């Protein structure tokens, strides 16, 4: 078929949705309906290939797939569905996938309505001039109120909902309507297939046989096997060994042209050569200028990651490098801790991002790690006028040298049913929030805006918000600059020795109670040793809280007869193994969780 004719039949779209509003299920149904997957091949959450994604029911990485669809007008269309993460931490990934599309489905739960994070992503889509198709999902729920939710979408986003698709992805209702709406409303890609090549890199990963696999969206020109290509930001030149599409399994094709979403391989060894957001062009006939890249998002949350086994430092570096290949937002640099030895200070987009990276290091690379409590970047101004930033509390200078400290603030947006407004306001105020604005979204829901220190959000705001509103609140935040605060560094001493990895920065007014809670928490988490261990929280030289772990009193197997010997031996080995998983800080054996204790103050269950 003529390239231009074919181009008219291409539709590129992604799906924007809040967690649990049914994005992955809708994607599954679309794959099924277009025959991309037979029912037999179908696994739930097909596009969420990472084990972690399936387990948590979330999307972390984006994923693109090509679908063939015969529309009601009798024509065959090529649809590219680019799956996106829904969580605020992954805004960067979302912006990447949106830049490769002309349209987006906005999926909203018919019972829940719009959520804060969805809103943020809708604005991103509008910024990218995407055609947005509202999809009201879960209409089969008894509590569904599609009309009310339509009204909400119109009021809050200003999107015409008269033609909104009503679906139940779970029950398979309305899926065809969605595809018809995509065909009718999403514009076909514009661009010239004969022009010099411009393809946007929106993802990449390393394949041990083919080198770096680069996901691209072709904007202009044509990409073929054998072509010499150039990365416009790095000027690196490669020869294309394979181009293809995901249908959803990777399938080589002859060429990718305007509007196509696919992948290329070119024996690229170094992932650094293929920066996400860069433009691929033809080496011999380069484009005049690159495509606009993405907004580069800087990490906001930092923590130390250390291998438990000190000899795994290099393995950890390799793991971080590999993860960085397809997650450019992850930053890291080596650091040293007196308590934990050699490790890395890592920067993340947010808390979920941090947790995901930690879990992937442990699972995919099999490295046992210790992570320190997350911190933000503080700006210190010394009495001698010197100003600098620290991302690690242990780098804070002595109190006498500090003139003032500034900390990052964010504007946080909370959407919540009106019955919880009082609780949320109380929570925000307790977290040093300054009220900005309150708006009613329809009759029942309220949007609250507060100016808050990022450190409070990093601490336990999420958890408290969730539990305080029975999970009904949704939340988003954006950076709002730095503000001067009365902050102090709190140190933790175990058995009289300062443990640098446990130091944290806290507001002066809440320092005492927090010191007390953390000492109590550490007492709970650090197992008894053969001697008594005092735990102290100090500010400067002053002890503000103290607890004591009593000495271990009894640990001896009562029964050990003929049949028990091998089993008891295993038990002792396990006991020893358990100790190995702990970090010896001075003479005290400290388990991994303790280093996160500064963060997890909720009493009942440590893990979210």
């Amino acid at each position, binding site marked *: 078929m003529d390239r231009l004719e074919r181009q008219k039949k291409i539709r590129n779209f992604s799906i924007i949705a809040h967690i649990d509003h049914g994005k992955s299920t809708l994607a599954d149904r679309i794959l099924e309906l277009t025959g991309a997957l037979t029912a037999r091949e179908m696994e739930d959450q097909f596009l969420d290939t990472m084990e972690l994604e399936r387990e948590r029911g979330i999307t972390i990485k984006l994923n693109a797939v090509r679908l063939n669809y015969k529309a009601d007008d009798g024509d065959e269309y090529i649809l590219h569905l680019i799956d996106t993460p829904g969580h605020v931490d992954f805004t960067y990934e979302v912006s990447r996938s949106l830049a490769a599309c002309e349209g987006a489905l906005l999926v909203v739960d018919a019972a829940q309505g719009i959520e804060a994070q969805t809103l943020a992503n809708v604005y991103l889509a509008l910024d990218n001039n995407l055609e947005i198709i509202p999809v009201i999902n879960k209409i089969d729920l008894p509590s569904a109120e599609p009309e009310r939710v339509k009204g909400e979408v119109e009021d809050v986003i200003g999107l015409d909902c008269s033609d909104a698709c009503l679906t139940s992805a779970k029950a398979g209702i309305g899926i065809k309507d969605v595809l018809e709406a995509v065909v009718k409303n999403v514009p076909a890609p514009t661009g010239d297939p004969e022009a010099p090549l411009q393809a946007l890199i929106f993802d990449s990963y390393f394949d041990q046989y083919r080198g770096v696999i680069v996901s691209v969206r072709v904007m202009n020109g044509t990409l073929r096997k054998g072509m010499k290509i150039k990365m416009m930001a790095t000027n690196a030149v490669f020869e294309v060994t394979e181009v293809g599409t995901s249908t959803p399994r990777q399938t080589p094709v002859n060429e990718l042209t305007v509007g196509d979403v696919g992948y290329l391989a070119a024996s690229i060894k170094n992932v650094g050569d293929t920066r996400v957001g860069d433009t691929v062009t033809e080496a011999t006939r380069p484009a005049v200028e690159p495509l606009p890249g993405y907004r580069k998002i800087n990490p906001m949350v930092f923590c130390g990651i250390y291998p438990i086994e000190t000899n795994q430092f290099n393995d950890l570096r390799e793991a971080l490098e590999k993860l960085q290949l397809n997650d450019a937002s992850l930053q890291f640099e080596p650091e040293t801790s007196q308590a934990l030895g050699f490790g890395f200070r890592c920067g993340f987009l947010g808390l979920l991002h941090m947790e995901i990276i930690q879990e992937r290091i442990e699972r995919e690379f099999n490295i046992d790690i210790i992570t320190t409590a997350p911190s933000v970047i503080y700006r210190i101004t010394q009495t001698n006028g010197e100003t600098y930033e620290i991302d690690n509390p242990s780098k804070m200078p002595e109190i006498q040298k500090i003139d003032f400290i500034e900390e990052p603030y964010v504007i946080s947006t909370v959407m919540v049913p009106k019955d919880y407004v009082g609780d949320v306001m109380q929570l925000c105020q307790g977290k040093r929030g300054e009220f900005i604005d309150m708006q009613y979204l329809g009759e029942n829901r309220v949007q609250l805006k507060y100016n808050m220190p990022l450190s409070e959000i990093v601490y336990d705001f999420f958890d408290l918000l969730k539990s305080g509103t029975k999970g009904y609140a949704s939340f988003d935040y954006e950076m709002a600059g730095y503000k001067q605060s009365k902050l102090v560094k709190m140190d933790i001493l175990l058995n009289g020795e300062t443990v640098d990895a446990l130091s944290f920065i806290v507001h002066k007014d809440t320092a005492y109670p927090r010191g007390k809670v953390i000492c109590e928490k550490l007492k709970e988490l650090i197992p*008894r040793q*053969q001697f008594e261990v005092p735990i102290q929280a100090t500010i400067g030289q002053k002890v503000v809280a103290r607890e004591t772990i*009593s000495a*271990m*009193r*009894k*640990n*001896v*197997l*009562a*029964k*050990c*007869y*003929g*049949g028990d*010997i*091998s089993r008891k*031996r295993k038990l*002792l*080995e396990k*006991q*020893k193994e358990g*100790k190995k998983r702990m970090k010896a800080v001075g003479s005290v054996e400290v388990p991994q969780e303790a280093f996160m204790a500064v963060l997890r103050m909720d009493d009942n269950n440590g893990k979210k």
Partner: protein
Amino acid sequence: MPPTSVYMHIPFCTNKCYYCDFNSFVTKNPQLVWDYLDALKNEMKLTFEQTPVEEVKTIFVGGGTPSYLEHDQMKYFLEAVQEHLGRYFASDIEFTMEANPGTTDVEKLTIMRSFGVNRLSFGVQSFDNALLERIGRIHDTDAVYRSIDNAVAAGFSNMSIDLMFGLPDQTMETFAESLNKALKLPLTHLSSYGLKVEENTLFHTLYQKDQLPLPTEEQELEMYLYLIETLEKHGLHMYEISNFAKPGCESRHNKTYWLNNDYYGLGAGAHGYVGGQRHVNAGPLAIYLQKAKEGLPRVDEYRISTKEQMEDQMILGLRLREGVDLARFQARFHRTVEDEFGAIVTEQKAKGMLEEVDGHLRLTEQAIPLGNEVFACFLRE
């Protein structure tokens, strides 16, 4: 030299106690018991053909509840033992059988006695009826007294009981009361175990639901120290972490294990240690019966390396109050404890956990309740 100790397992019980994770089955089907005894008899034949016995110094019949066997079953079982081992019995053989109060009448005890059983170990656990019910025992205190009276009447004079501490809702007072009642009985030996909540028991389920009010670590330690002190005062000296005896009445069979010596092990789920090789029998009854038809009913067999043997010698030997016999270690492995574990021993001595007394390396008094901490150090990479 072939082993001189024999362990045999009778896996039947009238009911399952809430803390028990031993290999035991509750059945009311006598045919199953007969089938088992036949299989066991066949295992004796094959075992002693493979490694012929020279002398039997100790036999221990454990369970389950060996006294669960009915009179004719008991007779059948002991006849088999006699048939295979009787002619090798040492003149001073220690032949122990475990028994539960409530399953021992004079006639059964008399049968046992007549086949050479000369030591009884009763699973008494407590003298507190409420507590006995709480832990799933079917007997009460009266049954204990009756059983001991019956045993004396049947001619037994070497008797031990088991007592437990650290039980749910048990206090120092109730434990002391039980202990003092035990001391009034004509016993030569006493074993006392701190409760350990094992997986696959009712207690484990309750524990996970936070419905098992166990004493604190401090209270448990207090009970343990009281136990040691009280028994020593009454002439039952501690010779192993959980075992106490009148002088000369230590269980020679159990010492086999702690001295890391060989033993035959027969019956469902039993372990044996013969010529540096450990083996494990099939545990589930049906599988044991099936396998025993075809040969030795073993599911696992593995050699213990010299390195592991040396470690075992330490962690088992340190359980004994006398400790590890340094000369014996050297004679066995042609290496000294110092050669092998020098750094560990030095460190533990410095910490006050180990001491050397009369050519033995042993736990110090303060180290006894923390034995595991010391044992674990002897397991090397």
